[in-house]
């Protein structure tokens, strides 16, 4: 099964059909997606600003990150669920959309950045937990994190302006859709 097959399977699923036929589905799901994205971005920003020494410098890094992480994951889970729902509504157009593909790559990059930070700089956190100035690797990870998550939002908004729509062509209309 190729990725395209997988996309089509999601699009042709009951979820996809439900998203396309229920008029209230899209606005509600999109609004939840924005709220979820706002929660992820905002909570990640609180942790990143602490790592950069720009906010919360009197609080321990582990306290700030531990406190925010549950909201980040709650927001992220909600964003994934609502994201899949939106994808199912227009799977084929999202699949072929460049902005959508870049968004997924940026999400993967943000995840990789977090994994590298967790397996690297964060392991020695006991030594700098209380310091305003964190190690360079932690500051680089935080700056990258801000950059990547803000980019995710920008590219994601761009999808809506470039994706076009799936629509059924009436039988009596002859559309020439060949690309010149």
């Amino acid at each position: 099964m190729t990725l395209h097959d997988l996309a089509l399977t999601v699009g042709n699923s009951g979820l996809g059909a439900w998203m396309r036929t229920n008029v209230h589905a899209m606005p509600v799901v999109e609004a939840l997606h924005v709220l979820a994205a706002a929660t992820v971005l905002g909570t990640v920003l609180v942790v990143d600003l602490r790592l950069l020494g720009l906010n919360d410098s009197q609080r321990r890094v582990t306290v700030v990150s531990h406190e925010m992480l549950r909201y980040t994951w709650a927001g992220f889970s909600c964003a994934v669920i609502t994201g899949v729902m939106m994808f199912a509504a227009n799977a084929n157009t999202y699949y072929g959309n460049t902005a959508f593909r870049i968004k997924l790559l940026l999400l993967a990059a943000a995840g990789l950045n977090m994994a590298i930070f967790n397996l690297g700089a964060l392991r020695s956190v006991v030594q700098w937990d209380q310091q305003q100035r964190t190690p360079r690797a932690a500051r680089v990870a935080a700056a990258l994190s801000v950059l990547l998550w803000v980019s995710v939002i920008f590219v994601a908004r761009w999808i809506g302006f470039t994706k076009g729509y799936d629509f059924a062509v009436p039988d009596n209309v002859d559309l020439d859709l060949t690309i010149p």
Partner: protein
Amino acid sequence: MEPFAQWLQATPLSIAIQSSSWLVPLLQSIHIVMIGLVFVTVLLLVLRVLGVARTEQPPSVVWAQFAPWLLRGVTVLALTGAVLIISEPVREFTAISFWLKMLLLALGLSAVAVLGKSLRRDAPASRSLAVLTLLVWIAVVFFGRAIAYDVEVWGALSLKA
């Protein structure tokens, strides 16, 4: 309101914004990033009132730390929002969700100001007001997105129906 919206939409400024292919997506992206900042700031203030987060910090410290971020975020939201309204005044001013959003926004800002009065003085703030504040801000975001779907959300009530 609609004649005014029609007039605004025909002004050179509005047309200039409309004719840019990247300005509206750019402003909307900045708007969403700032929603992240403002929403989580409100969330942190509410969680402090509820005693769920930052309990080791006095409420006045939490307020002093996050109120400036809230103000900056709201300012950028107002500026980007204003330009977005100028670009599509008819769509915005004829949407029920737009006016509901503005009403809820006024309520949300007032509610934060009331909570701030208690937080600043380290006085106990109303927990139910804190929960209500968070719900109002969630509704602001919700109806902000719903502006694009006025008929779908409001059905026959929508002026666009």
